[in-house]
């Protein structure tokens, strides 16, 4: 009898296109989805996956608290040793970690802020305003989401070499300051989260477009802006390919570039390398402990809507 199930008109027709809209609020989470209780096996498998997810991170800290010689012994250490402070200190001074962390914070913060701002206003224009070439421009935006960063690296490198921007932070900030994904994401969100009547009403009252952006669009878009900001920040913090090319390890690195220096064996001490990796990951891990719930909620919301 199972064959009957898929032949039914499965779910709503909106599910046809990849970015599907969220279910109407009225249907509610309580009814949607399956609500069977998980059995023992479910917990066992989930605990296994959780352990697999967390173990490399915990072990980074374990290895960072040991000595290099202890890491070259069998069996490998499983618990913390007393060398953490020393290794952190060496990683900090030898890999330029202080500068790197500060740089990464500036870079990721600026990119996140820029992406959110520009994506929101462009997304609003695409979702709610009328203008010529709108569909063509939107299609262009979506089409370029597939272009790999490798494709632009050569001319970008020539440009920053010409401008003498090598080792300067704007070389990594400017090329990633906007994102086609961000524009598309905000458009999808605003299409349904911002009633057109609201925009019209504000216009009737004589509000200028800028005022509408400030008083109507930003408040309506706030949840999606938070999601996009988070995603962009994590991505920018971890970005690797372009920073490795545009910045040097001993000049003005971001955390990822500094870690490359450690990994390439300028400092062969594995425990120091792990201390560096820990330093580079710790800020985001702390954010996960503090805001994990919101981040997960944001990604899931973004997944349905974006």
């Amino acid at each position, binding site marked *: 009898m199972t064959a009957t199930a898929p032949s039914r008109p499965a779910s709503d027709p909106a599910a046809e296109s990849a970015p599907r809209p969220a279910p109407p609020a009225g249907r509610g989470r309580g009814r949607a989805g399956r609500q069977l209780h*998980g059995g023992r096996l479910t917990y066992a498998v989930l605990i296994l996956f959780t352990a697999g997810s967390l173990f490399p991170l915990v072990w980074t800290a374990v290895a960072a608290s040991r000595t290099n010689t202890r890491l070259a012994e069998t069996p490998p250490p499983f618990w913390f040793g007393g060398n953490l402070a020393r290794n952190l200190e060496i990683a900090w001074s030898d890999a330029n970690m202080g500068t790197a962390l500060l740089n990464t914070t500036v870079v990721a913060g600026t990119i996140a802020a820029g992406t959110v701002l520009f994506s929101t206003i462009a997304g609003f224009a695409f979702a709610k305003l009328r203008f010529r070439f*709108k569909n063509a421009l939107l299609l262009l935006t979506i089409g370029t989401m597939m272009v790999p960063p490798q494709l*632009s690296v050569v001319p970008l490198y020539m440009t920053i070499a010409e401008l003498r921007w090598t080792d300067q932070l704007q070389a990594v900030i400017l090329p990633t300051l906007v994102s086609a994904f961000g524009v598309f994401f905000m458009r999808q969100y605003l299409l349904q989260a911002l009633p057109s009547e609201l925009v019209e009403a504000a216009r009737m009252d004589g509000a200028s*477009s800028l005022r509408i952006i400030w008083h109507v669009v930003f408040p309506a878009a706030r949840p999606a802006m938070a999601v996009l900001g988070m995603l962009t920040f994590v991505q920018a913090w971890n970005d690797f390919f372009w920073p490795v090319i545009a910045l040097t390890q001993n000049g003005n690195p971001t955390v990822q570039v500094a870690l490359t220096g450690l990994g390439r064996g300028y400092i062969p001490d594995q425990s120091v390398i792990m201390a560096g990796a820990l330093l580079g990951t710790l800020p985001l891990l702390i954010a996960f402990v503090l805001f*994990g719930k919101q981040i997960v909620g944001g990604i899931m919301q973004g997944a349905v809507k974006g």
Partner: protein
Amino acid sequence: MTALTAARAPAEERRRVRRSRRYRRDLRWSPYAFVAPFFLFFTAFGLFPLLYTGWASLHRVELTDPTHMEWAGLHNYSRLWEDDFFWNALRNTFTIGVISTVPQLLMALGLAHLLNYRLRGSMFFRVAILTPYATSVAAATLVFVLLFGRDYGMVNWALGLAGFDGIDWQNGTWASQFAVSTIVIWRWTGYNALIYLAAMQAVPSDLYESAALDGASRWQQFRHVTVPSLRPTILFTVVVSTIGATQLFGEPLLFNGAAGATGGADHQYQTLGLYLYEQGWVNLHLGRASAIAWTMFLLLLLIAAVHWLIARRLRKSR
């Protein structure tokens, strides 16, 4: 008094005209102003480099003097065609892509299914499986290099406990590709699982109820209700992971610190992204690097076309 009102009237009139003209101008031009910053940056740092790379791929350009370009026609491309290392990198990108993407998405689907049950501590599980996503390529690779170490690595130690010989994870072709894929799988499984979970929670529960009434087991419900409803989401993640796999770079670059851009002593895990980097920034041939970049672009277009065709056929078959 009358003189004053008479003077005020045209002033007011003028102001009103000015305001309505400003209003019309605002209505007409502000949409362009709102999309302008995006397209300005996008053109400067996305579109222009894309086209310029194509132009540079037809030239001889060296990193030491990037403004000096010598016309070479399709020479860079014909060289790639005869280049064994290029085909090797293409093959590696494909195999690593398959062995990292397929298990990753399957596991994510299963994981999402489990997370969709009513669970105690469900938020803890969700956050925990997402944490690898917050770890950078560099940090993750460095840890896995240690875990996969030949002599003292934990993986070989565990294999030894189970009675197997240790494996040289950095030098064996399959072993090293498996190890590189493990890093990708570790970082992205949880993220994809959450995306699937979100889509699962939007599946109306009456579908499950009627399937249960028809006597479908849990597995049959998963196969015949969950998976079909998730089809668009699955396609979306397949496309995104394919793009990611084509661009794989950081993991193979850092997997053997000493080897750098060669991707292992025998180039056994050198990907296209890494080969591009080696040609451009180690061998200093920017022209050839550009040709590799455009070849990657054409491959992606091809893959996108195939995905699109599959998606269309799936839609029709429903």
